[in-house]
Every structure is written in structure tokens, then in C-alpha cells.
């Protein structure tokens, strides 16, 4: 395809008059044929065709055309002519109105984060971050439930609160005299044996379930104390709350825990490592509420500052040395320095990588992942993978799996489990049809469990379509539910699945130890 361009003939002008076409539009022209007359300020010139073909004119006669513009094409083949026609249709399509809006980069990023259509902004002039923030706030105000005063208006959307959350009754209220002595002389309590600690708290009115372990040198002091069955607080742990501490069954905390805030509601099946700190500046503030959902994971040396509500959802992973702050420290607001106090929310099943920092006001959407060492300011949308300083969504937190791929991954679990058991020194039979035997129990994978099988057996499956007889345990990997009961082999398989992120109901559940 050849172009006919209006070339500069005169240094002082930007435009020339396209006076006359000498050939009809879409007619055949030959090389060197004069096709139009152009008047510039210094001369009138005829423009020649650079080649042979069909001429496609882009301007009418007697119009001023900017120098350097293409005024016509010469299509040398029928395909070229067709593509010119297609291009012309494209060019005449109306521009979408949103494309005309001038939005700042911050506004565009925030709008993308919240899935907001910028054409919803009714305003003359540039669309700024504040305009989008206002829209978000309006949407939130509609969505947020009324009441919830201890949450200071923080939306709990996407966050499963633990069953211990704000029971409102007086369960576990400590005798005020006992509490006063606890606060006055904490070392006396710390020096008690674990069993005596439990007995002392129970005697003073605390609600302490069965199998609760309070480690050597640990201290628990709050006007209301609720520790459900199987709660473990590691050695040298310190729990000091202004109103209540409530922890669900089977939750366990490693050594050197520090938990200080006004209200702490922790769910069941939480696993927390060593040297974890909840508290920091402002932990006595009226809004210092901590809520951690069931099955959450908190890694070693994590630090969660609680002076505004911190809501951590169900099955959230807050990994080693990650940090949450709800306020900053700095110079005078009257000198223009920022003075920020804001809640932080991690919606259900979100994950925060090693050493990541969540600044006051952060909200991590459900199932989103924040990469290690990232710094979060603002919101990360549900299902996003976000990375960087500041963290920005770069993709999705999970991949979409085909059925075939999912089946392949599930089947490979049998191979991996078999290999692990063999390496651990257990006697295992060879795999045959996704099935092997260990410790007298058959372990197998079937895409769909339809009932039957010789007990004892542990079955991994993607769907359960039949009754589960006695002596058989079926783990539905997709519905994440265990049917039936079993022994050490079931526990071991369940633990193996847990380490692949598959946590089963009924729960909470703690691995008592076994083959893996």
C-alpha cells in the first residue's frame, strides 16, 4: 500500500489548501499520474501518484490540510483495499465516553481496586483519588451494618467472626478482688504451676475448658476470661486485656506470646508460633478490639498493633514477621504531618507473606495474597495477588484448574503420601490403581466415592455419592469434609492434607501425632 503525503513546500506555513482532486475517489491511477492540486503559499503544485492501484482519498476538495498528513492511499491489491475499508469503519466508531474523562493515576488505580466505573463520578474537571474515596465511602456506608459499636463502624463484610465474639453475657467474669491481685502482683501468678494457674482462674470465675494448658511463667489477666477446651498458651505468655479475652477450642500459642488490647476474641483451631505480639501503642484505646477467626495461622514474631479494630478472618495466614499497624507516630498534625489511626481488616482465607507490612487503613479482600516484604496501604481486592512497596495487584491469587488438572493433582497426592510414608520408614505396599496399604489400613484415591469397600480404609475423593460404612473414613477433598471415623492412619492422612492447605470439617482439629 502506498501513501500520498502532503509534503512541506514552504517553511513558514503549517497548512496547505487541497484545491482539487484530478481523479475520482476509488479509481485506478498509474505511477506518476497527477492526482490532485495543492496550493501552498508559495506555489501551486500537482501531486503525483507514487504507484499504480486504486486511490482512496481521505479529504474532500477545497480544504486546508496540515502539512505532513496523509491525504490518500493507493491500494495496490484488492486485499489492501479491503483492509483500508475495515480501517475506515474502525476510525468512525464513536469513542467511549469514559475515555474522555481525565482521571489521575491514583484515581484510576483506586477505582480498579474497587471495581468502580469512573463514569459514575459526577464532576467537572479532573477525577481525583478523593472523588473515588468518596464513592467508596458512600458504598461502604450503605453496606455496613448498624450497631457494632465495638467495631467503630468497621465493615465485617467478608470476615467470619469467631463464635467467641462479643457474647455480651457475663461468662468468665473474674472476681474483682482476684483480678486486682493479679494485676498488682503478676509475678506471683506467673510462678504458679500450669495446673494451679488453671485452678486459680477457675476458682475466681473464669471459664476454663478441659485440657487447657497455661505454660510456665505465663499470665492471663482480664475482667472476663474464656478459654475453651484444649487452649494452649506457651511458656512466658502474657495476656492482659482491659475487658475480655476469649479463645476458642484447640487454639494454641507458642512461647513468649504477648496479647494486650481492650477486647480479644479469638476463634477455634488457631495456630500461632513463637514470640508473637498483639498490642503496642494504644492497646488500651476504646476501639482496641482484636478478632481472629477460626483456623487462622499466625507466624513466629508477627506483630499486630491494636489501637483500632483489627479483624482477621477465618483461615487467614499471617506469616512470620508480618506486621500490622493501626496508627503511626510522628510530628505535629498542625505542621502538616500525617496522624493516622485506622482499622485493619483481613478478610477470610487471605494470606500475608513473610515480613509484609499492613499500614493503618489496610483491608485485604477474601482469598487475596500479599507477597512477602510487601507494604500495603489501602485496599487489596478479593482474590488478588498483590506485591510491592506499595503493594499493587498484579494478578489473581489462585489459578483456575481444569477438571483434568484437578484430578491429576489429587491423584498425585496418593503418590506423594506413599513416598512420604516410605521415607518415614513405614511398611507400605506398592501402589496399584491409586491404592496402597499401610499399618493394616488401605489408603486410596477414587475420583468419586460411591459406597462400599473393605474396612479398614481411608479414601481420598473428589465427591461422595454413597453411604460410608463403619470402619471406612472418606475425605472429600473439594467439600473439605471428613465422613466416618478412623485411627492413626486417618489422622496422618488428614495432617498430610492440612499441609497442602486442605482443612476439613468437622473441626477444629489438632493432629495428635502419627505416621507423618
Amino acid at each position, binding site marked *: 500500500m502506498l501513501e500520498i503525503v502532503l509534503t512541506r513546500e514552504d*517553511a*513558514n*506555513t*503549517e*497548512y496547505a489548501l487541497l484545491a482539487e482532486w484530478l481523479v475520482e475517489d476509488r479509481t485506478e491511477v498509474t505511477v506518476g499520474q497527477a492526482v490532485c492540486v495543492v496550493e501552498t*503559499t*508559495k506555489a501551486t503544485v500537482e501531486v503525483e501518484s507514487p504507484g499504480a492501484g486504486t486511490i482512496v*482519498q*481521505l*479529504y*474532500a476538495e477545497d*480544504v*486546508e*490540510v*496540515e502539512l505532513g498528513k496523509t491525504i490518500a492511499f493507493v491500494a495496490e491489491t484488492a486485499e489492501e483495499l479491503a483492509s483500508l475499508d475495515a480501517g*475506515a469503519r474502525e476510525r468512525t466508531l464513536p469513542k467511549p465516553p469514559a475515555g474522555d474523562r*481525565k*482521571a*489521575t*493515576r*491514583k484515581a484510576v488505580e483506586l477505582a480498579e481496586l474497587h471495581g468502580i466505573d469512573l463514569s459514575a463520578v459526577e464532576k*467537572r*474537571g*479532573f477525577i*481525583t*483519588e478523593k472523588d473515588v474515596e468518596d464513592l467508596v465511602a458512600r458504598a461502604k456506608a450503605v453496606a455496613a451494618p448498624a450497631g457494632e459499636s465495638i467495631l467503630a463502624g468497621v465493615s465485617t463484610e467478608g470476615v467470619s467472626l469467631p463464635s467467641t465474639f462479643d457474647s455480651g453475657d457475663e461468662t468468665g467474669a473474674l472476681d474483682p478482688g482476684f483480678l486486682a491481685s493479679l494485676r498488682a502482683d503478676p509475678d506471683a501468678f506467673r510462678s504458679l504451676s500450669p495446673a494451679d494457674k488453671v485452678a486459680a482462674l477457675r476458682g475466681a470465675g473464669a471459664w476454663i475448658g478441659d485440657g487447657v494448658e497455661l505454660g510456665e511463667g505465663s499470665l492471663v489477666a482480664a475482667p472476663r476470661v474464656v478459654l475453651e477446651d484444649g487452649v494452649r498458651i506457651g511458656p512466658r505468655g502474657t495476656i492482659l486485656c482491659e475487658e475480655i479475652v476469649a479463645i476458642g477450642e484447640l487454639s494454641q500459642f507458642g512461647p513468649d506470646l504477648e496479647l494486650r488490647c481492650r477486647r480479644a476474641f479469638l476463634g477455634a483451631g488457631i495456630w500461632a508460633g513463637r514470640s508473637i505480639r498483639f498490642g503496642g501503642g494504644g492497646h488500651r484505646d476504646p476501639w482496641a478490639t482484636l478478632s481472629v477467626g477460626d483456623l487462622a495461622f499466625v507466624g513466629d514474631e508477627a506483630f499486630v498493633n491494636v489501637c483500632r479494630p483489627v479483624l482477621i478472618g477465618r483461615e487467614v495466614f499471617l506469616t512470620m514477621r508480618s506486621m500490622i499497624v493501626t496508627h503511626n507516630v510522628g510530628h505535629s498534625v498542625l505542621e*502538616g504531618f500525617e496522624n493516622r489511626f485506622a482499622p485493619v481488616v483481613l478478610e477470610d482465607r487471605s494470606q500475608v507473606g513473610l515480613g509484609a507490612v499492613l499500614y493503618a487503613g489496610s483491608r485485604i479482600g477474601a482469598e487475596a495474597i500479599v507477597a512477602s516484604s510487601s507494604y500495603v496501604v489501602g485496599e487489596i481486592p478479593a482474590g488478588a495477588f498483590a506485591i510491592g512497596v506499595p503493594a499493587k495487584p498484579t494478578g489473581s491469587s489462585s489459578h483456575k484448574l481444569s477438571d483434568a488438572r484437578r484430578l491429576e493433582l489429587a491423584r498425585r497426592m496418593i503418590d506423594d503420601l506413599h513416598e512420604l510414608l516410605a521415607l518415614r520408614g513405614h511398611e507400605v505396599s506398592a501402589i496399584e490403581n491409586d491404592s496402597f496399604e499401610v499399618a493394616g489400613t488401605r489408603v486410596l484415591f477414587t475420583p468419586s466415592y460411591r459406597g462400599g469397600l473393605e474396612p479398614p480404609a481411608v479414601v481420598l475423593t473428589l465427591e461422595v455419592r454413597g453411604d460410608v460404612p463403619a470402619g471406612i473414613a472418606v475425605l472429600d477433598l473439594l467439600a473439605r469434609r471428613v465422613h466416618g471415623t478412623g485411627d492413626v492412619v486417618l489422622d496422618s492422612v488428614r495432617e498430610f492434607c492440612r499441609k497442602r492447605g486442605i482443612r476439613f470439617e468437622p473441626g477444629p482439629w489438632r493432629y495428635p501425632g502419627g505416621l507423618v
Partner: protein
Amino acid sequence: MTTTAQPRRGVQALNEALHAIFASRDDVVLLGEDVLDPYGGAFKVTQGLSDAYPDRVLTTPISEASLFGVAAGMALRGQRPILEIMFGDFVALGLDQIVNGISKFREMYDDQVTVPLVVRAPMGARRGYGPTHSQSLEKLLLGIPNICVVACSECHDLGALLTAAVEDERPVFFIENKLLYGRPNRRPEDGHIGELAVRESGDPYPALIFSATDFTEGTATVVTYGGMLPIVLDAVTELILEHEIFCDVVALSQLAPMELDSVLESVARTGAVVTAEEGTLTGGFGAEVAARVQNAAWSDLRAPVRRVAARDGIIPSARSLEDDMLPSVEDVVTAVMALDGVAR
């Protein structure tokens, strides 16, 4: 397919204004090189004028010094000459007439005479015209008492400015940036140009004040004129879109005598000033603005005034080298970002 409708280009607006002025006043004459039809002047501003008014459009030899003298004489004798200097650079050839005659006659003769002369001078680069046809020499004129220097921008009412210049009893140097001719003359509609709110202030040569916040707040005031306005507006837009930094822009049209009321009003809001001009840096427009603003509004300023201008050198012919010499959008952005308290 036809070209889409757009605002008049600068050259059309000026050309129409000249026709209107000639139709309404018999005492106006125009002198210059190559101004007759069909050529109509190097930049086509006088197109059609000599055909319509053959006795009042005079083509002259290439002799700017005598041209200024002839025009001064005509003005002293009651006519209203408009002098077209083909390239503003050649104003230098008339400087003796300007400095020792045109600017002094009225005061020397105790107000018994006036010199109502308009000198139209295309200035500015970015066309590859080289060292002697690309300069912005307004600053040479700014220090001459008793003349008026008016620079039009693509957002000013070009016709109104030119008409006011012809009506003015003072000698008026009317600066037309060359890029203005080919660009649309974008006037405020409903108080806005694009996304920016615009006010006009001052008479008869108003300043245009632009704000993205409806004149409520701003980080800095960028003071500019003429051909730098589109570059400053691009820079201000980039600052908003990329950094959410909002600046006022004040585009003066009356450079001399310098009146900065509109600038001071903006500075009271923003607390910082950046000047932007296409001429070379030293001893220029920005220096004069800085001196006056610091004197009048010291307590409003939180940062030293920053100047954006051409490097102190000559303008090369090659476009790439020319770009290196001239102030750019990036230079303006950088100057604003470098103000105290802007970039954090």
C-alpha cells in the same frame, strides 16, 4: 471523509481581527515585508488585507531600522500604523529607534504627542529556524520605560488583544509566538478550558488564571505567557494525573508595564511560584516576576521562586538540538516537584 470542525487557528483569528480593525478605522495602516497579496506575509496574518485596502497596506524593503522610523513618524502625525516585523529577532535592528525615539517622544515633548504604534513581532522557536529566526527577545523590551509589551497566547482572545493594542495611545509591542498561528485558538467555554477552570483578570490585556480546583487550593503558581502556555498546561496536567499535585497557572498578556495582581492573588493561595518563559534564563521575565513577587508577597511564600527558561546559549537549527536548548514540559514538572514541601 472530511476534516472535523475545530476552533479557529491563531492565524485566522488575527487575520479576521485585522480585517475588522481596517473596516472600522480609516487611520490604521500596515507596513511590513512581503505583506501584500497574494503572499500575505510570511505567516499569512495579513492575507487578503492588501486586496481589500490597497492604499493602507505598504510593502517595504528589508530595512527594519528605517521601517521603525517611518512608522514612528506616521504615528506622531496621527496615523495608527501596525508594523509587521517578519521575525521578532529583527526588532534588534530597530532598537535605537525604540529606545531613543519611540519610547521617549511622549514624555520628552510633555504629552503633546503620542506614538500609537503597534509592532507585531513573531517570536519563538521549535520550528527549526536556527539561531537568528527563533529567539524570544521579549526581555530586551521589558526594561524599556514607557512602552507596552503584550504577548498573546493560544487561550487569549487574540482579536480583542490586537484591537486593544491598536486603540492604545502607547507604543505596543505585540508578541505572537509562531506556534500560535497553526494551533487552535482555544477560548474558555462555560468558564473552562478542558478540565481547568479559567478566569480572566485585567483590562485591556487580561491575564488568564487556570485552576484544577476551582480556585480553592494549589501547590504552586506557574507564571507564564505566550508560547510557553501550552507547554505549562501540559506540565500541569501531568502533575495532576501522575502526582495529584494541583497548580494554578497565570498566563499574562501584559508583560510591560508588569502588573502582577492576578499572580499575587494566586500566590496567597499556593505559597510558591515557578516562572516559565521560552527566552534565555538570565535577566529575563522570570527574574523580574521573582523579584516583584518576593517583594510583595514574602510572607505568602514558603519556597524560593524557581525559574524555567531556555539555556543561556544560542538556538541550534537541528530540531533535536533545539529541544535540548528550550524549556520543556519535563522542566516545568521538575521545577514544581523541586519546590520545598512538594515531593515527599
